[in-house]
């Protein structure tokens, strides 16, 4: 997004602006389709074919295969759409939070609990 140009980056954070939206359009469109159970099933049956249908690029395919949320974010994925992809593998927001933060689920939860103790 133009208006983010020259802004100081926020550590550990990717803002989903126009540039990211351009990069990730097809990826997010695929993830949006996972609102429907039949599409989730179709993806599970033939992951490559499903990625073909939505025209994902090679990097995006590889990151989908690795279930690597940080990579997918970098490739234009938006977290709300990506959650519909990771949901297929039984990963919830806390699971992918831990994955992105690079800690175990227990550590991730413990950090949040600690933030609750003043």
């Amino acid at each position, binding site marked *: *997004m133009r*208006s*983010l140009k020259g*802004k100081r980056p*926020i*550590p*550990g*954070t*990717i*803002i*989903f*602006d*126009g540039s990211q*939206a351009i990069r990730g*359009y097809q990826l*997010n*469109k695929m*993830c*949006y389709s*996972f*609102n*429907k*159970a039949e599409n*989730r099933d179709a993806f599970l049956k033939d992951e490559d074919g499903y990625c073909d249908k939505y025209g994902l690029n090679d990097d995006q395919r590889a990151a989908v295969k690795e279930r690597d*949320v*940080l990579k997918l*974010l970098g490739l234009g994925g*938006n*977290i*709300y*759409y990506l*959650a*519909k992809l*990771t*949901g*297929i593998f039984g990963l*919830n*927001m*806390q699971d*992918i*939070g*831990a994955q*992105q*933060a*690079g800690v175990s689920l227990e550590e*991730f*939860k413990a*950090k*949040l*609990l600690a*933030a*609750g103790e*003043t």
Partner: protein
Amino acid sequence: MARLIGGVGSSHVPAIGNAIERNLQSDPYWQPFFKGYEPVWNWMEEKKPDVAILVYNDHGLNFFLDAMPTFAIGAAAEYQNADEGWGLKPLDPFQGDPEFSWHLIDSLVHDEFDITMCQEMKVDHGFTVPMSLMWPRQQGRDRVKVIPLCVNVVQYPFPTARRCLKLGEAVGRAVASYEADLDVVILGTGGLSHQLDGQRAGHTNREFDTEFLDRLKDDPEWLLKYSNYELAEKVGPQGVEMIMWLIMRGALGNDIRELSRNYHIPISNTAAGVILFENEAV
């Protein structure tokens, strides 16, 4: 004429819906969160509002990036909840008030707000979780008609905090000019501080949230000094949802009383807040 009798600010994360589905309200993890809603339940029970204007954001159920509205308002007779992909059980449909919706839309467009008008609209957890939280029993939920007001806080650029406050003020004028004998509440939902994406996932900011809650009644303009980008740094990219509380706050005007408040970390990856205002002017 319609009366805006009060407003509530509330979190709306899916995990709450999950906890309600599984009846975990008195579980030690959840009890400090749900107890904050008791004053709201009592107030709703006493006031029995006829209509709720629910300010929320869609998280990828009804809207996609092919056409992402800044502000969308429902004008349907019924709103369906649906499968969001990761397992929350859809709730029963919600009854709309198309006449009131069209009055609101007319008034706002006349006031130079560029509304997307929705005669068909699925509502996601951002809408359903607050409904379950305000009206835990189906009977209460069925009694209140709803008008969804959906805000873009997914795709930058989001509306500015200032624009949200102004939209709220215009909503307040629109309610006051509606010729029907109705008690109306407005719910501002989302937030408070949280970050779902990136290495900083799990970030919360008690200090900022607390100041936001402290200032919301008498100094809502305080939030306007932060751009949405600066807010993302402070409260996380998803914490910026708190700008939707300003729409609720703007609608209420300045003759209000804070009846209750609660703040609790963590609920899933978020800091959860709830605040109840009553309008003294009506």
